[in-house]
């Protein structure tokens, strides 16, 4: 679904987002809404659908009442003030009725995906592809068929969301179906207005347990963005398997099942047309004959005609009860791939943070060691008895030190010029570089010592931040993995049940077709047997 690439967490490549802390939309004067927001923030991870007792609105209550279905009752061509025409779909849910257009459905879905990155948000029908346009014959016909199909699939989307244990409670979903609610307003108010562009920057909105905004506040630790091509050092085998399975499933559905199913569907259509022609021929034939024979031929023609009609019914039923759900599952596979990808990225993020933390610790270690060393040298140099040469011998073992170390050495050496200059000649070639860097640094840094101390301070701060971030992401990753696993399990259950329904529908529709035709052809055969010879 190309539309949903915008959800791609990597669309924003800045390592640190600079969005503002959240703001409540000042236009909302409905105090009831503010109440909801607080409830929103603390969505419990251990959500048990059976025990929902608190509802955010009437729709919420209706949805969880049991046998609740949402219907799309109509589709109209509408023209807005700017003069552009589009289709609006009338949604009827409980007492509510509202008209929404396709782009609004799209943005609802995007919003749900960004609020709930660990959940498998049901798909909506795709924007019409070029191929679809190219294969259309007759504009008027295609308009109606496509619109009807969209109606069905958008309706299926709404109902699937309303049956999802977590998504069904999401208030913006309720708002979408509420009469007289401007969707534009919803988009620009909390919580949607305060989601960051790159969702990798935060903990997942649906899993955050803090009472503070789940978004970047000044207190929130900075999260690094990993490169998607990186490999996980310690991948989770369970999710690696899930990723592989999803790939295979996706391929099989779209390359194999959808293709072969479509071929049958098309061929049955041609077959149906052939039979329409054939029926007319037999009817004409019967007019040229007489008596029993004419009746027999006519009856055969009628059987052929009814086969034509029955086949038309078969085709449209299969479309609604098998092909469209199959298409939904093909799209579901992409959704799962995106969700798993999100987790994969979070995992990479965690490893990246851990790695960076390690590096910083090592750096800090080094800086601290050189700080100690510098102090030691100071102390030593204040005692004139020790020869610089022995200093050098000791220090030759510590080649890993920053350049700053050597700077300090020479600084002090300069102070005691007469002794220092003699030692310069003892320096080997490899230390020439450090002489140069000392000179450069001498020009650049006014006070290398202060610089090092600054470095240490900063590194210590960074380490603290990274440790916090690592803790957060590790916790997040645990929650994410758990949430995803639960939703995958729920999805698997749903998928098996849907597949069962689809296959039963396939069989039942074919059975109906066979039964209808059987009775018509048996009648025709009986009429032929009546012919006197």
């Amino acid at each position: 679904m190309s539309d949903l690439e915008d959800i791609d967490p990597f669309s924003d490549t800045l390592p640190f987002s600079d969005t503002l802390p959240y703001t409540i939309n000042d236009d909302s004067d409905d105090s009831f809404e503010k109440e909801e927001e607080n409830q929103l923030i603390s969505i419990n991870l251990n959500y048990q659908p059976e025990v929902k007792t608190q509802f955010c609105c009437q729709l919420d209550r209706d949805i969880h009442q049991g046998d609740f279905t949402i219907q799309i009752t109509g589709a109209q061509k509408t023209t807005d003030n700017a003069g552009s025409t589009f289709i609006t779909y009338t949604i009827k849910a409980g007492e509510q009725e509202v008209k929404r257009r396709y782009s609004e459905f799209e943005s609802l879905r995007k919003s749900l995906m960004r609020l709930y990155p660990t959940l498998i948000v049901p798909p909506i029908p795709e924007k019409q592809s070029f191929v679809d346009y190219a294969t259309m014959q007759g504009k008027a016909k295609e308009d109606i068929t496509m619109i009807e199909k969209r109606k069905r699939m958008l309706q299926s989307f709404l109902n699937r969301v309303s049956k999802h244990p977590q998504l069904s409670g999401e208030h913006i979903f309720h708002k979408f179906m509420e009469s007289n609610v401007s969707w534009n307003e919803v988009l620009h108010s909390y919580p949607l207005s305060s989601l960051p562009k790159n969702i990798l920057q935060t903990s997942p909105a649906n899993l955050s347990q803090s009472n503070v905004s789940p978004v970047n506040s000044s207190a929130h630790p900075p999260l690094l963005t990993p490169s998607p091509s990186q490999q996980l050092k310690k991948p989770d085998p369970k999710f690696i398997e899930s990723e592989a399975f999803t790939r295979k499933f996706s391929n099989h559905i779209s390359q194999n099942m959808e293709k072969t199913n479509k071929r049958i569907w098309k061929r049955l259509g041609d077959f149906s047309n052939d039979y329409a022609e054939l029926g007319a021929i037999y009817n004409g034939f019967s007019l040229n004959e007489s008596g029993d024979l004419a009746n027999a031929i006519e009856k055969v023609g009628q059987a052929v005609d009814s086969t034509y009609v029955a086949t038309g019914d078969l085709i449209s039923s299969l479309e609604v009860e098998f092909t469209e759900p199959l298409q939904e599952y093909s799209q579901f596979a992409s959704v799962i791939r995106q969700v798993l990808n999100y987790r994969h990225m979070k995992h990479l993020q965690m490893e990246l943070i851990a790695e960076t933390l390690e590096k910083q610790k090592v750096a800090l270690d080094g800086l601290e060691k050189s700080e100690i060393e510098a102090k030691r040298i100071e102390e030593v140099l204040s005692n004139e008895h020790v020869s610089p040469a022995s200093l050098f011998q000791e220090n030759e073992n510590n080649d890993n030190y920053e350049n700053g170390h050597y700077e300090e050495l020479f600084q002090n050496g300069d102070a005691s010029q007469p002794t220092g200059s003699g030692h310069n000649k003892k320096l080997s070639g490899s230390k020439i570089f450090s002489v140069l860097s000392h000179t450069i640094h001498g020009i650049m840094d006014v006070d290398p010592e202060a610089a090092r101390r600054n470095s240490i301070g900063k590194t210590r701060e960074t380490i603290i931040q990274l440790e916090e971030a690592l803790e957060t992401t590790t916790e997040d990753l645990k929650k994410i993995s758990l949430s995803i696993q639960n939703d995958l399990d729920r999805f698997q259950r749903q998928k098996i049940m849907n597949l069962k329904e689809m296959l039963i529908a396939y069989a039942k529709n074919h059975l109906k077709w066979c039964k209808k035709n059987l009775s018509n052809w048996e009648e025709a055969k009986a009429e032929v047997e009546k012919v006197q010879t």
Partner: protein
Amino acid sequence: MNPDQLSHSNASNAAISTAFPMTITVAEPLKEFDGTKDAFISYLITTKTTLDTFSSPTVSVRRRFQDFVWLHNSLSRDFAACVVPPLPDRHRMEYITGDRFGPEFVEKRRASLQRFLTRLSRHPTLQKSEYFRIFLESREWNRESSLYRQKKPGDGVFENLGDALLNAFSKLKKPDEKFVEIKESVDKLEENLQTIDRLYQKIIKRQTDLEVDYRDFGSSIAGLGQLETGITAPLEQFGDTISKFADAWKRMTYREENGYLAQIRDYLTYCHCVKNVLKLRDQKQVDFEDLSEYLQNALMERENLMNTGKSSTGISSFLRETVDNIKGVDQEQVKKERLQKLDSKIAELEKEVENSNDVSDQFSLEVAKEYEIFQTAKTIEMKDCLLAYADSHVEFYRQGVELWEEIIPILDDIKFQA
């Protein structure tokens, strides 16, 4: 089920009555002299009959295609007014591709030959012909058939006859209403059959493709079962159901192609034969009409001679008279001689006209009878044909109902296994 078995069993039920005193089966094709360049297929012809002209109520012989040709040609020659049913097309693709021993070709031919003999057996005149008897029971085939064999230039008299009469219908001065109607109705019949033939070729291809499509889909469902390990078994069974459904499509298509379509095409050739005989009848009438015209002209000539003493008028006769006068020819004598000639010519013509009239009338009567026979045969044959056709559909949908009913409870049982 063999496409023709159904029609044959109906035939045996209708049989042993006075109208249909014999039932004939063509069976057991056998390749003889296999491996040599003289190899051919022979068929076992079994006849059950009540006619006493036959040596016994049940006889069996082996004949090859060439023998059928002899029978057909002999009958066509001697029973010109009869509609002799056609033989299967000799010059088929299979001869060129070299597959004239392939099982499908042999079966199609066998069925066609059986239809040929069955039609003959139902024809009141032809069923009693000596040629037919010899064909059906003679143990001394070569001897008996050569008594009647006539050398014709080129093989396939059928084709020659057909070709010669492929010319358009002759123009009649006084077209006979009855036969005009007959021709029109045969035309319409031909048209209908041709349209069915054309459309059905399309349908056969369509159904063949559909069969393949279903098979592909079936294996994709089974493939899904491999991925979804919780429901592998029911999905495999579903795939199996679809595969069997595709088999059912295949069977129906086979029956339609080799039964229904073959019969339709055969019937079209039969219609051509009827049209040929109609053409022949028209020709006889034309002969009569032409002769009548000559006779009229001769009578008019006589009239003129009697009235004016001149056998003809115009410049040429005037000139001849003048010349005669000059020559001193006796006008009266000339007139008497001319009258005599005319009278004998007229007498001859009158006889010929009467003869031709008889022939034409007789032929028309025969043809009218033939058409009745054809109509009766048509009813029987179309009934058989449509019955097999309807049955092939009934069989298909019955199998379908069984298959789909079987799989539904298996699918209903699917439970989610964690």
